[in-house]
C-alpha cells in the first residue's frame, strides 16, 4: 500500500461526499420548506376563517329602512285617542302600515300582489310604531313620514347591490315585481341602510331582521359571573393547598392525577354530569345560567388550578423563608406574601380559563341552554342561552339572513375572546416578575 493509493481512495471518498452533498442540501431545503408550508398553511387557514366570517357577517351590522307616509288617525288605528298603553297594543298597526303601502303604490290592486307588497315591510315595524306612539301621544291623528324596518329579503338585495335596475342578476326569493317596487322606492330615495341597533338590543326572533344577541349576551354574562365566583376562589384555594401545604402522600397524588385527568375530559361529559346531578337530582332549573355556570366552573377548575400552581411555584422560596424568619405563620406567609406576588399569574390563568368557558357550547346543550329566548334574562335563574349556543341555533336556521346574523354573532364572540386574551397578555407583561 502506498500513500498514492490512500490519496486516491480519500479523493474517491471526497468525490462521493461531494456527490451526496448536493442531495443532502436539497433534502435540507425540502425539509425547511415543509416547515414553512405547514406553518403558513395554518396561518392562511386562520385568515381564511376570519375573512370568510367577517365578509359574511359585516352586512348584519346594517339594517334597511323604508320611508313611508303613515296616517295615524285614531279611526284607522281603531282606538280611542285616550287609550291606555295596554289598550294601544291592540291597535291596528299592521292595517295602518298596509294602507301606507297601498297609498305609496296605488296601482297595485290584486289580492296576491297586495300581499306581496306588504311582505316588503317587516312585522317588527308594528312594534316600532307602538313604541313611537307610546313615547309621543301627539302622533295620533297625524300624517307622518316614518322610516320602517324592511323585510330581510328586501334588506338582502339592497345591501348586496346598490343599484337594483338589473333585477335578473339578483339571487333572491323576491319576485321581479317586488324587486321592481324596491327599485321604485330606492329611486325615490325612500330606502336607507343604517347601523343595526336592533341586533344589539333585541333577543332572539323568528324574523331575521328583528333577531338580536342581547339575550344571549346577558346569558353569557350571567353564566360567566357564576363561573367566576365559583371557580376562582375554589381554584386558588386548591392551588394554595396543593402547592404550599399538601404533604407528600397518596391522597395528594390522587388529587393531582385527578386534576390533570379532568383537564382532558371531553366537555360534553361535564354536560352529562350537569344533567344527571344538578338537573335530575338537585332539580335546579333547566336552561338557567346558574346550572350552566356550575358546569362550566367544574370544567374550568383544572385549567385555573394548573396555572395558579405554576404562578405560586414561580415565587422564590427565599420570600417564604424571610417571612417565616420574621415570625409569620405558614398561612400568613401565603396570604400576606406569596399570594399577592402570584396574583398576576393567577389572574392571567383565570381569564384564559374564563375565555375558554365563554366559547364552550357542548355541555350547555346538555343542560337545556339551547332554547329560543326572546326575553332578556334578568337573573341567574331565568331561562337563557349563551352566545356560542345562539351561534349554533342560528347556524341551523334556513333563512339566508340568519347566515349573516350567525357570522355577526361569531364576530361579537371573537371580539370578547380577543379582548379577554389581550387583558391576560397585558397582565402577564406588566406584572410578571422574574426573580
Amino acid at each position: 500500500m502506498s500513500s498514492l493509493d490512500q490519496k486516491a481512495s480519500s479523493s474517491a471518498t471526497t468525490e462521493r461526499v461531494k456527490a451526496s452533498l448536493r442531495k443532502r442540501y436539497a433534502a435540507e431545503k425540502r425539509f425547511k420548506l415543509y416547515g414553512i408550508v405547514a406553518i403558513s398553511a395554518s396561518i392562511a387557514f386562520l385568515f381564511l376563517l376570519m375573512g370568510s366570517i367577517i365578509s359574511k357577517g359585516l352586512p348584519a351590522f346594517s339594517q334597511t329602512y323604508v320611508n313611508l307616509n303613515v296616517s295615524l288617525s285614531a279611526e284607522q288605528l281603531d282606538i280611542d285617542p285616550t287609550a291606555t298603553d295596554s289598550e294601544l297594543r291592540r291597535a291596528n298597526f299592521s292595517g295602518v302600515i298596509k294602507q301606507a303601502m297601498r297609498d305609496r303604490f296605488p296601482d297595485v290592486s290584486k289580492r296576491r300582489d297586495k300581499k306581496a307588497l306588504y311582505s316588503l315591510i317587516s312585522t317588527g315595524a308594528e312594534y316600532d310604531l307602538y313604541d313611537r306612539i307610546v313615547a309621543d301621544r301627539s302622533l295620533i291623528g297625524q300624517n307622518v313620514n316614518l322610516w320602517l324596518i324592511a323585510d330581510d329579503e328586501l334588506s338582502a338585495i339592497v345591501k348586496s347591490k346598490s343599484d337594483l335596475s338589473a333585477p335578473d342578476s339578483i339571487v333572491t326569493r323576491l319576485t321581479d315585481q317586488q324587486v321592481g317596487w324596491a327599485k321604485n322606492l330606492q329611486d325615490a330615495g325612500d330606502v336607507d341602510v343604517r347601523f343595526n341597533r336592533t341586533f344589539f338590543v333585541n333577543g332572539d326572533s323568528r324574523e331575521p331582521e328583528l333577531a338580536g344577541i342581547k339575550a344571549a349576551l346577558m346569558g353569557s354574562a350571567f353564566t360567566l359571573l357564576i363561573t367566576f365566583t365559583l371557580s376562582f376562589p375554589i381554584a386558588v384555594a386548591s392551588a394554595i393547598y396543593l402547592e404550599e401545604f399538601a404533604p407528600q402522600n397518596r391522597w395528594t397524588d390522587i388529587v393531582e392525577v385527578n386534576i390533570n385527568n379532568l383537564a382532558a375530559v371531553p366537555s360534553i361529559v361535564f354536560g352529562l354530569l350537569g344533567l344527571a346531578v344538578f338537573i335530575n337530582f338537585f332539580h335546579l332549573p333547566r336552561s338557567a345560567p346558574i346550572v350552566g355556570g356550575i358546569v362550566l366552573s367544574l370544567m374550568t377548575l383544572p385549567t385555573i388550578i394548573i396555572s395558579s400552581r405554576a404562578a405560586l411555584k414561580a415565587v422564590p422560596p427565599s420570600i417564604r423563608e424571610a417571612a417565616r424568619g420574621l415570625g409569620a405563620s405558614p398561612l400568613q406567609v401565603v396570604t400576606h406574601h406569596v399570594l399577592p406576588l402570584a396574583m398576576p399569574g393567577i389572574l392571567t390563568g383565570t381569564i384564559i380559563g374564563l375565555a375558554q368557558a365563554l366559547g364552550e357550547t357542548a355541555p350547555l346543550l346538555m343542560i337545556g341552554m339551547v332554547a329560543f329566548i326572546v326575553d332578556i334574562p334578568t337573573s341567574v335563574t331565568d331561562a337563557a342561552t349563551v352566545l356560542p349556543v345562539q351561534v349554533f341555533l342560528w347556524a341551523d336556521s334556513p333563512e339566508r339572513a340568519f347566515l349573516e346574523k350567525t357570522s355577526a354573532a361569531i364576530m361579537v364572540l371573537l371580539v370578547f375572546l380577543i379582548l379577554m386574551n389581550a387583558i391576560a397578555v397585558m397582565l402577564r407583561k406588566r406584572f410578571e416578575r422574574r426573580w
Partner: protein
Amino acid sequence: MSTTTLFLLTIGLGIASYAYGRSRAYSVAKRHGGVRALHSLPSHYGMMVALWCALPALAIIISWKIIEPSLISNMLDSAIPQAIHDGGVEAVKLYKNDIGNLVDSEKIASIDNAEKKLAAERLTNLRSTSALALFVLALTVAIAGAALALRKIKPETRARHKVERVVKFFLISCASLAILTTIGIVFSVLFEATRFFQEVGFLEFVTGTKWSPQTAIRADQVGASGSFGAVPLFLGTLLISFIAMLVAVPFGLMSAIYLAEYASRPVRNIAKPLLEILAGIPTVVYGFFAALTVAPALRSVGESIGLSVSSESALAAGAVMGIMIIPFVSSLSDDVITAVPQSMRDGSYGLGATKSETVRKVVIPAALPGIVGGVLLAVSRAIGETMIVVMAAGLAANMTANPLEAVTTVTVQIVTLLTGDQEFDSAKTLAAFALGLMLFVVTLFLNIIALHVVRKYREQYE
C-alpha cells in the same frame, strides 16, 4: 323572608361580629397590658368570633334547605284527598306538583276545587312556618355562636390556631373537589348506563351494527324497539378522528419543528401567537365554518371531478377538526423538542450532519415519547370533540370507510338524544349516558397513558 336575604343577613352578622370581636380583643388587651399580652393578633380573635357566628348558622340554612322539600311534601300528605292516595304514588306526586305550581304562581284564590284549595293553603302555611322557623333558628345559632366565642377572647386563647385550622380545612375541601367531580362524573354516567344495559344488553350495544334509537310511543307500533348497536358510531368517530389526525399531526409537527429549530426570533414571535389564536377560537365557530363553507366547497369540487360527495361528509368535519387540533399538537411538540438538550444537537453537527438530518435522526427520536404522548392527547380531544361534528357531520349511522360519505359519531348521538323533548326513563335518553360512559372511559384511558408517557419523558431530561 327569602333564603337569599337570610343568607346575606347571616354573612352580615358575621362581618359585624368580626369588627366587634376585634375591638373586644383590643379592650381585653388593654387590661392585660397591650396587644403583646394576647396570644394572637386582635384580627384573629375577630375572625374567630365571625367564624363561630356565621359557619354553624350557614350550615343550618343549607341543610334545612336540603331537607325542607321532602319534609313539607310528607306533611302535605294529610291534606291530600283519600281518592288521590288510592291512585298510587305517581298520582300523589302529580297532585303535589300541581298544587306546588298553583302556589308558586299565586293563583290560590282562583282555585275552584275546595279540596285542592285546602291543600294549597296548607302548603302555603307549611312553607311560611318553615321559613319562620329557619329564620329564628339560624339567627339564634348565629348570635349564640358569637356570644360563646366572645367569651373566649382571653389572652391565653390560641385564636390564630383555631382560625387557621378552619382555613386549612377549607383549602383541603376545595382541593378535594376535583375528586368529587370525578366521582360525580363516574357515578352519574355509570348509574344511568347500567339502567340502559338492563334494557339493552351490553354485548348488543358494543357489537351491534344497527343504530336507530327511535323508541315507539305505543308498544304495538311497527319497529317498536329501537336498535342500539353502537359499532357504526364507534367507526364513524374513528374515521373522523383519523382524518383529523391525518391533518393535524404532519402540520402540527412540522410547524413545531420549524418554530423550534429554524425560525428566527421575529418569525417565532409572530407565528406563535397566531397559532394560539387558532387554538382559542371556539369550536362552534369551526363547526359553522365546516358546515357552511368547507362542506359546500368540497361538494362542488367533488362534483366538478365527477365524485359524489355527501354534503355532510366525514372529510369536511375531519379536516376542519384537524385544523383545530394543529396548534394543540404543535405547542405540545414544541415543548418536548425544545426540551431536548442542546448537547445532543451539537454532537450531531460535530459529526457533519445537516440541520434536517439532526432533526430527523437525533432530535425527533429523542423527543418521540413526548410527541407520542402529545398525539395521544390530541386523539382523545378529537374523539371527544362535539360541536364541529354536531354541525358538520351527519346523523345517519352508516358503516363506511369512505370519507366522502356521511357518518355519525358518539358525541353527535349524545347531543341528538339529549336535546329537545326527553323523558328520562326511555332507553333513548339512557343510551346517551351509555355512550357518554364509553367516551369517558376511552378518553380517560388515552389521557392516563399520554400523561404517563409525557411525565416519564420529562423526568428523563430534567
